[in-house]
């Protein structure tokens, strides 16, 4: 198999990357593989932002137990993001409230912004990826 390419730190270009998480954590593979993109872009020293909207807010909800579905919980990865200098996490207020959640239900510190502010934030990004 080919080796995974080492990040090229030589370009010096830093772009604003946003990972827009819209899906619940375990029904599909999107959330897990978004995290892989997040970690690699952090390794490339990009300006990484994570946003949680719609069912995506469930990804960082406390008290997940994945034993019954025999899937590995990746909840600890969100807690580890700080160690990769990924500290810009945003949750859409409306999405959270629609699901009866509050900031106290989340496993990591986030900035809670309303839908209009989220739209402006997305607009200000260079690259938006998601699942």
């Amino acid at each position, binding site marked *: *198999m*080919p080796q995974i*390419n080492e990040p090229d730190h030589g370009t010096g270009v830093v772009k604003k990357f946003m990972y827009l998480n819209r899906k619940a954590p375990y029904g599909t593979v999107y959330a897990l593989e978004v995290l892989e993109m997040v970690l690699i872009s952090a390794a*490339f020293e*990009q300006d990484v932002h994570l946003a949680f909207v719609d069912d995506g807010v469930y990804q960082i909800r406390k008290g997940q137990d994945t034993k019954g579905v025999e899937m590995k919980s990746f909840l600890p990865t969100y807690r580890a993001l700080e160690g990769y200098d990924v500290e810009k996490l945003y949750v859409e207020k409306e999405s959270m409230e629609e699901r009866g959640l509050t900031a106290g239900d989340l496993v990591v510190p986030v900035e809670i912004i309303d839908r209009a502010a989220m739209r402006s934030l997305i607009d200000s990004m260079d*690259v938006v*990826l*998601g699942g």
Partner: protein
Amino acid sequence: MKFGILVNEGPFNHQASDSAYKFTEAALAKGHEIYRVFFYYDGVNNANRLSEPPSDDRHIVKRWSELGKKHSLDLVVCVAAALRRGIKDELLAEGFRISGLGQLIEAGIQSDRLVMFGD
């Protein structure tokens, strides 16, 4: 303009690969540059040379290979996503290569626009 293309869904089940193909073809026809086409998630299945659709249907895998050959496109399949799904070097259709997710991030950095196809 320089485009990066990200294909996040497998062939046939979802229109994403068809749309990405049509977009890529149209962008090239207009004289734009395609920096790279990156296949992630189930999108890695677009590189499976064993795919054999009925003869009256479009051949999605072959179509990518042919477009890639014609325009020397860099068709890159994510290694981690591919291994999960059993896509290995010996299964790759012509013109595809397997590499790391860093190739996607690099495409995001180097392209004027990174266009994502999928859910």
